[in-house]
């Protein structure tokens, strides 16, 4: 390293703060998905033209470019294909460390991203040792559910 903080020249700046409030329109598809979560259901949509099953649900299949049809409920179990441990988070984000995984629920064509537990957070440990990729995991529901993705608290290893 060639520089340290105390030798750096501080350039003149002006603080600018944005205060924008948004109400994101959920639309029909995600409204239904969120209502499902409130009822401890994981709902998916299927393409009307091919066999792809989307979770989170999509209103259309990007490959066939046809609307999806037919809601279906998926099991709460699947395979943890990959995860990363966030050792360092960001302003306004969750408290690090936390593990974010990509889970293929049984019957889904897509991966659902969510938090996973069961990882050894000891510094220096191989994070995959206690929770190998390919582990079967299941959803753990939050006590209070309000129709948002964190109605699933996280996924945990099965058994």
């Amino acid at each position: 390293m060639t520089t340290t903080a105390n030798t750096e020249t501080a350039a003149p700046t002006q603080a600018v703060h944005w205060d924008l409030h948004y109400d994101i329109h959920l639309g029909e598809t995600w409204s239904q998905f969120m209502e499902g979560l409130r009822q401890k259901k994981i709902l998916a949509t299927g393409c009307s033209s091919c066999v792809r099953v989307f979770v989170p649900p999509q209103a259309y299949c990007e490959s066939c470019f046809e609307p999806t049809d037919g809601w279906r409920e998926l099991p709460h179990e699947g395979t943890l294909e990959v995860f990363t441990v966030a050792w360092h988070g960001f302003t306004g984000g969750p408290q690090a460390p936390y593990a974010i995984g990509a889970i293929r629920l049984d019957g889904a064509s897509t991966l659902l991203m969510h938090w996973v537990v069961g990882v050894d957070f000891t510094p220096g440990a191989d994070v995959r040792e206690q929770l190998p990729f390919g582990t079967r995991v299941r959803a753990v529901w939050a006590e209070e559910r309000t129709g948002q993705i964190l109605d699933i608290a996280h996924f945990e290893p099965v058994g």
Partner: protein
Amino acid sequence: MAYRAAVAGVGLTEATSPRKQTRSTIELCQQAVQATLAHSGASPDSIDAIVTGNIDGFEGTVLGAKHVTRLLGIGADLPVTIVNTGGTTGGNLMQVAARMVRSGTHRRVLVLGGPTFFGSTDLQSAINTNSPMIIEQPLGMGGYHMGAFAASAYQERYGLTADDLAAVAVADHAKASRNPFAHLRYEMTPEEVLAGRPLSSPLTQPMVCPISTSAVAMLVADPEDVADLATTPALIKAMGMSADPYLGGGKGDFSRMQNLANLARRVYALADIRDPLGEFDAVEIFAPYAHMQPMQLEALGFAPPGGGIDLIRSGATDAGGTLPTNMSGGPKCTNAGVAGELAPYAYAALQVMGDAPASIQIPGARRSLGHGTGGSFFQFENLAIFESLARSN
């Protein structure tokens, strides 16, 4: 009627951290534009449009180009096209400009990439706002967290080791140390890379890009229309873009860059590339995180699946190797947002123009490849192939 398009000039500023940067966004952009005009020899009044990119949530301005481009000293009322495709904005700027020239609506278009990451106090927090709203954003993912998914999956599948990741970072730093326009111009040892602060497994801080401030510009012109110019233009021989689904979970397989592989086949066919490893003299790829370079080399057809690291360790991607890759040091050592995304195209074009900084120029380079990628979970990819164009006059 249809026309051809070439890069006829490139301008780069020096890069440094936001904290040490004493120039403003406007001043950096002015400097890159002036450098482009000086390089090409084009007069300001020969430019008939500007294509630039803004990523509003990162910059503290909304469509900042609306005032910045009025102050570049090349005319206060040039037509401006503002493109935003996240991390692929830079490469897409040149492709949009090339289409303007190729269609005949314009003759000379200035492409400008500014310092997008200049001003945001926590960039990972800003990047989290492009994480899919409602569904994936609450999980807490910034740029390198998203990147770490591919690193983890690739590691699992092909056995990439931490030492391998360190070797990529070490090579990038060695290259950046020779580039006067790079930000992190110091060499690192594998031990230093491995001992860096863990960010998101398996990545440590020295394996991910810095936040830089700099500006990059280029002039895209009709190569038949360069009598007044000073450079050997870089013909834009072929180009293309490709996109994955929105949700990170829609990609299916994080261990392979299938979207880029699809695009490479398409763009190589346009340029009649039959043997990628043998046909490029220089390659500049957008690999801000260490694991991306081997994965991209594979997707681009330079190495078999899992073989990217062997290509890097063999020395083939160093100066004097068969596939000099990221002689600039790449985005791993300099990443100023849209400027950083335009940089691979700028360096790739400079190589075949013969005008790269002497310390990183590949002697006699005739054909080069430029690459860009970005968006949430690197949703978007773009490629362009440049060829040295002998002047007709």
